[in-house]
């Protein structure tokens, strides 16, 4: 664990960060071995006496019971982990990569490029997030990559603005000027001096963006625009909501998916608090 923490450049003694990383590791393992742990989430199940195994409460056979259409909730939950991470990691990776690059370029070079990129950021921030994702999902079809595309197109400005302001301060630092005097090219200065010093900040926004992406995917699926071919936690909740799981009080159906989302997203927040301590050490003592 300590070596993993160091690899992620996280403080080893921060309890929240450790909890966060542990949750990630557990869920990643579940996602990797999903096929082993769970059976086919869409398979329609029947009881011994042949009728539909609908709305069965949790039992040994079905640890989390079954849906109103007789499907195993536990399997859906496990398979759902995979799509949560798929969306979460890809969208977070794309958002942070785009945000960091824009932040770097506009912060370091300034001038017209900076103005244009920042106006683009304002425009992206001017588009209402969920409505845009909904419209995009409706037009381009409810596939996962459309959700990732929408998240990337709209969420990069937050990261870009923060990275840009950090680059603006770094650019005036003594060691950057020293590098210029030592004859280093702009490219080398960015690679050796600027990028490593903003890395914790982009990792901070990365861990937050994973949470955001999973929440967004869940909301889209809940609104009925999510992919129908694959299982996701949001989809499960939409399924439960639509089939009166609330009024029937079948908590075993709509609580677990929500809890899984909470755990994964809060893990991202806990880890980001770890980075925050690095970036703003004043908060430590």
């Amino acid at each position, binding site marked *: 664990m300590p070596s993993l923490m160091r690899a992620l450049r996280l403080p080893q003694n921060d309890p929240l960060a450790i909890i966060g990383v542990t949750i990630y590791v557990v869920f990643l393992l579940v996602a990797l071995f999903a096929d082993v742990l769970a059976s086919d989430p869409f398979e329609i199940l029947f009881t011994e006496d042949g009728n539909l195994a609908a709305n069965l409460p949790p039992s040994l056979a079905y640890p989390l019971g079954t849906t109103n259409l007789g499907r195993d909730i536990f399997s859906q939950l496990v398979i759902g982990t995979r799509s949560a991470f798929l969306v979460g990691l890809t969208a977070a990776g794309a958002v942070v990569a785009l945000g960091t690059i824009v932040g770097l370029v506009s912060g370091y070079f300034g001038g017209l490029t900076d103005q244009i990129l920042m106006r683009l950021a304002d425009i992206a921030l001017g588009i209402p997030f*969920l*409505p845009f994702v909904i419209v995009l999902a409706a037009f381009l079809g409810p596939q996962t990559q459309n959700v990732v595309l929408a998240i990337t197109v709209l969420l990069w400005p937050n990261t870009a603005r923060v990275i840009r302001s950090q680059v603006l301060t770094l650019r005036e630092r003594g060691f950057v000027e020293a590098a210029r005097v030592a004859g280093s090219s702009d490219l080398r200065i960015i690679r050796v001096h600027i990028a490593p010093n903003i890395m914790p900040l982009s990792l901070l926004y990365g861990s937050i963006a994973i949470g955001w992406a999973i929440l967004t995917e*869940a*909301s889209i699926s809940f*609104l009925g625009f999510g992919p129908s071919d694959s299982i996701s936690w949001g989809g499960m909740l939409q399924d439960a909501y639509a089939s009166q799981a609330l009024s029937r009080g079948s908590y075993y159906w709509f609580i677990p998916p929500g809890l899984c989302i909470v755990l994964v997203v*809060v893990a*991202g927040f806990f880890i980001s608090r770890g980075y925050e301590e690095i970036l703003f050490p004043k908060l430590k003592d």
Partner: protein
Amino acid sequence: MRSVAIRFAQMLLVLWAVATILFFLFRLMPGDPTLAYIDTTFTAEQQEELMRQFGLDRSLAEQYLLYFANVIQGEFGTSFRSKRPVFTIIFEVLPNTLALTVLSITIAYIFGVLVGAWLAWRRGSIAEAVGIPLVLTLRAAPEFWLGMVLLAIFAFGLGWLPSGGANSAGMQFSSTFDRLTSPDFLRHLILPAATLALYLQGLPLLLMRSNMLDVLQEDYVMMARMKGLPEWRILLLHAARNALLPVVTAFALGLGASVGGNVVVETVFSWPGLGRVLVDAVASSDYPLAQGAFMFIALILIVMNFVADLLYTVLDPRVSHG
């Protein structure tokens, strides 16, 4: 003053850009672009009249100009399903959305600021060790799931509160204001507002706490203590006053974002708001209504972004008295 003028110009630019994106977005539909405006159930004359009104037979460029002329006059076309002007539909549901949004975000920020400041003051206590993870967990929960849980417990489980909608069926009200202040409406409002407030309180709380921690380490707080001023006065008038500046800006940004953002909460509680209208319109390919709702939500968001910038320059003397 200069910065305000520039920001206003930038806001207009963003408004124009978003409207343009919207224009092309709704032209991207698969199939015939005219579909966006003409419902097959219309009579031939109606279809003809709409074609002319929205210049759908003309070139894209001309359509674009006509589109803007209409947008500025608030002319968004007619909803397919309800055959009523989009503008009127939006204005009918707007009070519900604003009531829900403004109430919940105000509760969230008041609660967040007070608890955030208190947690900063109680730094290192158990309250902090428990409080921070709890707040982060609430912030990590999807809004609609929070809604579902509250519904399951208070509406279906205990039956204390209605399970959806803004007013009980068959209630008559003389005016919108009368409706919004009726006990029936307020009973319907409790659960959705609570859900939203629970979700929204995380940001102000964490922001206020970290600002307070920074401010409490500043020299002028030490100086205030050395002057022998009472601790409560230092915390309130000096520390909180400085720490509040960024939170006020965040409030304006939050308000703008949550009008479009609480689409899911409106869906869970079948709350007849702007977000719900948008979702239903998109789901039923009622494009004029969808485009109108989207445009309106974007307008509120962009204006509030500008108001946030304005608030910052006005409230911080270091900027206003440059």
